[in-house]
């Protein structure tokens, strides 16, 4: 596929659920038997973006932002209320076999492997479902097993594996048919830090080797920082930001941190900004982003500065701020 034909195109995608609603209590429950009141939930309200083949894109947003709903529309599990989604030129909702063969879905909170059997048996099942030629299947399977370093685990019943080990098996199962688009919904959910790092490194390596397109949702910013050059921030069903991670910080970080080391004591840095911490002669100041250059200049001119560093706030803080600012409540 040539790089200028997008892998994923989403235009004005909307998903509205109708959810039955009633007041608490017996009387209301009885009343609702006869007259059902429904409320429309706008899970996704007009999302548009384009993803090129081979891109790894992080999909960020608080719970209920519409991330999973969008992912489900892209994998053909949900029909959009309106708008358009195209993945490799296919309309996902039609669930054509050729389309399904080219994608995969991994959900951190769901499993598809046979619980009581070794993962190898489940892999055979997947081979039959995707009609994989035996030689190709074995090559892919063994490559994935080696990449994730689980050679001795694939023969153990899945129920005897740890959560992280199980996730690795789920990922192998999801990739046996060599999909060209990976939709990963919280793939590191509940895993410890080491295991998260392993999965992350694996996804990066898989993307490098196969050129697969990856769309990933995660609560863990570390996942996104490590894997995604581009992020799409979604909140209340709308895209708030779409661009490089560095630009997100640039755009939404309202403050800069100045780390100042003085040559001698006695200066009062409170005049320059909010002092967050002081450790001997080392001060951490917080100043509004717009004022950072001016404050830096003043500090250098007026205080006995030995060393000065400007730091961007951690990405987690920025994201939190994004959602706090845009929350209408």
């Amino acid at each position, binding site marked *: 596929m040539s790089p200028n034909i997008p892998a994923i195109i989403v235009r004005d995608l909307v998903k509205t*659920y*109708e959810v039955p609603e009633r007041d608490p209590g017996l009387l209301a429950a009885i009343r609702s038997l006869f007259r059902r009141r429904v409320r429309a939930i706008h*899970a996704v309200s007009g999302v548009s973006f384009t993803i090129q083949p081979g891109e790894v894109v992080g999909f960020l947003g608080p719970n209920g932002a519409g991330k999973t*709903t969008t992912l*489900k529309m892209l*994998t*053909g*599990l*949900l*029909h959009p209320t309106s708008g358009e989604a195209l993945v490799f030129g296919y309309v996902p*909702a039609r*669930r054509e*076999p*050729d389309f*399904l*063969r080219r*994608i*995969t*879905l991994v*959900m951190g909170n*769901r499993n*598809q492997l*046979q619980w*009581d*059997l070794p993962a190898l*048996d*489940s892999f*055979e*099942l997947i*081979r*039959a*479902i*995707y*009609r994989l030629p035996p030689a190709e299947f074995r090559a892919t399977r063994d490559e994935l097993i080696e990449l994730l370093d689980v050679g001795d685990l694939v023969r153990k019943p899945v129920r005897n594996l740890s959560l992280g080990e199980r996730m690795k098996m789920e990922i192998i199962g999801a990739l046996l048919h060599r999909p060209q688009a990976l939709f990963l919904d919280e793939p590191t959910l509940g895993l410890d830090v080491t295991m998260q790092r392993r999965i992350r490194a694996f996804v990066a390596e898989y993307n490098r080797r196969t050129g697969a397109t990856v769309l990933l949702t995660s609560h863990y910013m570390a996942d996104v920082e490590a894997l995604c050059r581009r992020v799409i921030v979604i909140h209340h069903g709308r895209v708030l930001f779409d661009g490089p991670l560095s630009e997100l910080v640039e755009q939404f970080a309202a403050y800069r941190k100045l780390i100042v080391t003085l040559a001698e004591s006695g200066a009062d840095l409170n005049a320059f900004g909010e002092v967050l911490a002081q450790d001997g002669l080392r001060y951490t100041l917080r100043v509004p982003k717009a004022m950072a250059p001016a404050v830096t200049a003043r500090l250098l001119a007026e205080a006995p500065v030995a060393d000065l560093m400007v730091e961007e706030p951690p990405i987690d803080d920025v994201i939190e701020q994004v959602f706090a600012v845009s929350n209408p409540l």
Partner: protein
Amino acid sequence: MDLARIVATFARIGILNELQYRANFFFQLLESAIGLATALIGLSLVFRHTTALAGWTPAELLVVMGIYGVMSGIVQALIQPNMLRLAQDVLEGKLDYALTKPVDAQLLISIREWQVWRFTNAVVGLFVIGWALLWMQASVRLDQLITFGIALLCGVIALYSFWLILATTSFWVIQIESLINLFEGLFAAGRWPVSIYPSWLRVLLTFLVPVAFAVTVPAEALTNRLTGPTLALAAGVALGLFVIARLFFRWGLSRYSGASA
């Protein structure tokens, strides 16, 4: 054929799963034995008072009983477990993985569970049929055997379709257990030829729950009762139910993808 390969692989996995619970086999054997003994006692009690029931001799009724065993074995081993899993997956929103596979969704949800020990009932049923045929000293002609096979297949299709319709209602109704209990109650009536029942019940057992087509019609094939039109009707009902079930399932699926969170 790919289809056969998929089914065979699922069957193999199902057997592997069940082999881990060998105790189930012995429980199932015990259950089948008790079931058979109760049925035989019932039969002997009836024939202490009469020599024929609505035109059926004791040996012929034994054929009915055997076919009932075969059918309930198939239902319990394959149809019911898969349909219960479907209902449960719909309830818990766990159908997602099945729907992202490049295989017909209805096929996939119909072959995932194999409770192989439950086939014991079917095997016992086959023995009962053989025993009954020996008792009758009937020589079964090949064409009879073929019509029996066709009738049996139609019966299985009708039962499967009926179950699929039942399970598909879980896209709208949250609990389908009561429906299943109702089915089991009505299906138990299949131990006897439907002709012994009053006409209102007979209609119910023919067209609402396809017990008549699943058990009585195949039994008619083995006991020289089956007429061409009846077999045609059985085939028509099986086909019709299957089409209805498939359309209904698709409608349910579109609701799943249209509404669930």
